[in-house]
């Protein structure tokens, strides 16, 4: 690890670099690359068979993102361990910044040098890192004590509440869910789980009152989509029609009538799965879901292999994050969940989420590359 002190710095650096590349989990890299290409293909279809405006930029972003991912994979975990707290603080600050100086009526974006940047995405990674760092020196803390979990819960709730009040209910809940999953994973006593569950349930009416009108609408419409078939329910009805009409084999690539005739809302971002389902049918959808499951399984396998708690939590966190994205997104477009606004990782058009996921996978690769046990 202390390669900087190596006498034959130059030579051994190259050696180290090559050995790291060799130890890289190329199956994951291939999987990621494949998913990005699927994204490009269907963004091409979403634009009615054109590179612009989505497919081209998605391709460029994917290439840059994968490069970034590989770079991150080669850096040692110690580096991220040190960075984690500053990352988290930076993330919180950017969320605050968005809160006060954000773009548009819904404050989610920061504009930096012409790039629109959505801080609610990378804050998830920062949360994973900061939780991992907190639990890393596990030997010093007592997991049975309730007070142990006080700080992590604050870590989770701070960004969660910021994002919910942006307002972005979906991402906010995803952050909180992610945090809870990590706490659960690390072994939070079950009595706390039950206690907090009761607290949350009793808070539902209060939270309900705090929600914006459109958020309430979305949930109501989710419970009964037909109640507003031209308003909020329109999206989900049209999405279900598109998926349902796909059948076993789909309507064929570039031939989805729902998307071609603009019945699908947001077909390039949150509803891209609908488009794939319509054009590729049940089989295509299953293959895609399988691909995601495969990727998640590969990541989860690494969480067993790595030895440090920091690495375990980071790997598990990223894996669970991808799972959350996939489950929320597909559950949403096929009408199982309310429309909360969750992108399909690696496929939906949207720079921040794509880069976030790729960085996360980069972290996972880094943990596996630098694992001592191998």
């Amino acid at each position, binding site marked *: 690890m202390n390669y900087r002190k190596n006498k034959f710095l130059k030579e051994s650096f190259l050696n180290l670099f090559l050995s790291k590349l060799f130890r890289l989990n190329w199956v994951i890299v291939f999987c990621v690359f494949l998913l990005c290409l699927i994204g490009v293909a269907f963004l091409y279809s979403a634009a009615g068979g054109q590179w612009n405006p989505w497919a081209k930029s998605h391709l460029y972003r994917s290439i840059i993102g994968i490069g970034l991912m590989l770079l991150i994979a080669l850096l040692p975990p110690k580096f991220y361990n040190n960075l984690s707290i500053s990352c988290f603080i930076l993330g919180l600050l950017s969320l605050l910044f968005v809160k006060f100086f954000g773009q548009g009526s819904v404050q989610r974006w920061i504009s930096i040098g012409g790039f629109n940047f959505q801080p609610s995405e990378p804050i998830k990674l920062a949360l994973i890192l900061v939780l991992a760092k907190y639990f890393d020196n*596990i*030997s010093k803390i007592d*997991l049975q004590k309730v007070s142990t979990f006080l700080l992590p819960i604050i870590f989770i709730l701070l960004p969660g509440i910021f994002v919910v009040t942006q307002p972005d209910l979906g991402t906010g809940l995803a952050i909180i869910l992610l945090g809870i*999953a990590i706490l*659960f*994973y*690390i*072994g939070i006593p079950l009595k706390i789980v039950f206690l907090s569950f009761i607290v949350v349930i009793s808070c539902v009416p209060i939270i309900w009152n705090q929600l914006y009108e459109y958020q309430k609408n979305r949930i109501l419409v989710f419970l009964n989509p037909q109640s507003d078939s*031209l308003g909020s329910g329109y999206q989900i009805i*049209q999405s*279900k*029609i*598109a*998926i*349902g*009409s*796909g*059948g*076993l084999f789909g309507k064929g690539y570039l031939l989805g*009538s*729902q998307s071609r*005739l*603009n*019945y699908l809302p947001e077909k390039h971002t949150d509803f891209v799965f609908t488009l794939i*389902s319509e054009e590729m*049918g*049940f089989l295509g*959808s*299953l293959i895609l*879901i399988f691909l995601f*499951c495969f990727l*998640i399984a590969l990541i*989860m396998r690494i*969480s*067993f292999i790595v030895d440090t*708690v920091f690495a*375990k939590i980071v790997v*598990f966190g990223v894996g*669970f994050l991808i*799972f959350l994205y996939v*489950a929320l997104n*597909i*559950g949403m477009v*096929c*009408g*199982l969940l309310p429309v909360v606004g969750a992108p399909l990782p690696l496929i939906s058009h949207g720079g921040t989420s794509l880069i976030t996921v790729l960085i996360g996978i980069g972290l996972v690769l880094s943990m596996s590359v630098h694992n001592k046990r191998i």
Partner: protein
Amino acid sequence: MKSKNKKLLDQKISRRFLFLFLIKGIAIGAISWRLFDLQLIENQKYKKLSDGNQFDYLIIPPERGRILDRQNRLLAGNMDGFSLVLKWNKKINVDVILKNTLSIISINKKDIKNFNLQIKTMKNNYPKEVLITKNLSQKDVSRLAVRRINFPEIFFSMSKNRIYPQGNIVAHIIGYTGIFSKTDVKNGNVISVPGLDIGKRGLEKYFDLQLRGMFGRKRNEVTSKGYIIDSQIHETTISGKDLQVSLDMRLQAFAFQRLEQGNYNLISTDDKSIKKQLTIQKNNKYLDKKYVYTNKKNRIVSSESGSIIVMDIDNGEILCSVSTPSFNPNIFSNGLDIEEWNKLRNNKKSPLLNRSMSGLYSPGSTIKMAVALAGLEAGVIDYKTNHFCSGKKEFGNNDFHCWAKNGHGNVSLMQAIEQSCDVFFYEIGLKIGIDRIAEMLKKLGLGQYSNIEINDKAKGVVPNLDWKFKRDGIKWQLGETLNASIGQGFILSTPLQLVTMVSRIANGKVSVEPSLLLKKTNRKFDLLNINYDHIKFIKKSMEQVVVGKKGTARNYKIGLKNNEMAGKTGTVQVVGISDLEREKGLLKNEDRPWKKRDHALFVGYAPVKKPKYAICVVVEHGGSGSSVAAPIARDVLKNILNV
């Protein structure tokens, strides 16, 4: 300590991981099941919905089949018309456009009302085409076309309008079309397509499905914003089949005019005395007429109302079926004005009534042949039966009068038919009995719906013992048999039934059924089952009506040597005549109010040697059968036979 702690943690993590793994599995399973449900189980439902999104189907009405007469003359056809259509979208101001349009052309109120209704009930804001009116004249089109630049939202489209070139001459048989009503949709006659015309009456109604053809559909591919990006014919329209009917338009037109004229004179409205009368009367009825009818005193009279039917006695084809007064069916094609409709409906002479098939009249003396046949068949009378006519028959407390005040003296059966002696028929009627008479009348086609291809037809009444008891709960009176024997009383029949009766007698072998279709093949009829000798005798008697010295129609021969027409006159009392009136002396028919005048009837066939055509003429309140109906029948038969 450290490693132990770590080991415990690892165990815990593994357990927790497994639990989370299970949750993930459940989530993925739920999603997969959902997709399976949507895409495979409910696939058809969503496919339909998706198609509904993708495609907008426009129904294209087929062109309605034509109706032709036996010589292929057009009775009902289609004329190209222009429709005015508004290309509607959210931004335009409909009221202003409509106002500006109305300043240039006039659109009838009903269309404007419909149009406004369409605009109001529009479901979404997508642009679409809305029909303003279907009835645009050539003039309107050119007026609007010149100012086209001011009306970018309005354009013309071609449409088909039903047209009846023969006007009122065959109106009752052809019928007319109109916009379908809610009851039509409820009865399943028609699917609800805006602008679709369906047959409302006559042949248009009876053969509606055949004439209508099959709808085609145009399939537009529309985006979610309603823009049409592709359009193609999805199902081709199949035009309605043409219908050829047995009517002969030349004969029909002649008969129509002849019936209207009756015994009046036809005078042009340019005539001085007529002009004077018209200005004095200020009668709007004759304003647009080129000619009027006048009586002997040169007074304008309204045309006769009644019916003429001519039927081929071999195959039952109806060659002409006239009913006056009539109406112009073309007024229904362009959306009927409610005022005009009410005027037609409330007209006292009921121009909408098809007198030939729905008009019910007492047949009067025209059924005397049937009564005689009933007697001959039953064997209660024979050719030599004699009765003395003193001008009346006393029966019970009443006197039953013969039309001849002083009686016919001693008459045989043939003479009784020739001179239409009522007393003779009173006598034999009593012998035969009402049930036998009714049976014969029914055999000859009375008192039942015929199979003719018209929906609206009357059944008529042929009374018998049961009928009376069922209707009134009272026993049949013998006096009523007397009335029935001369075709008065309860008996009611339509001209169609009378012409059927004559056809069957003239044919003598089969019971001919009337039909309006031109039959290419020979039709098969049931046997008539009447002794042909009896028929021959009756036919001879009918011939005597025309050629006999005392025949009631002796003045109206068609002029063929040894090949005359044969027939029977009938004069039907419309109101009862009291004894007091009779003693005072009867008023002449012309002097009575129109409604109280007798109906004049004539049934007959020609030529006698080889019968071919049967005819029935009814002139409502026309006077006597021999002086009014017989000459009309003669002229019509002359026209057919080209004499």
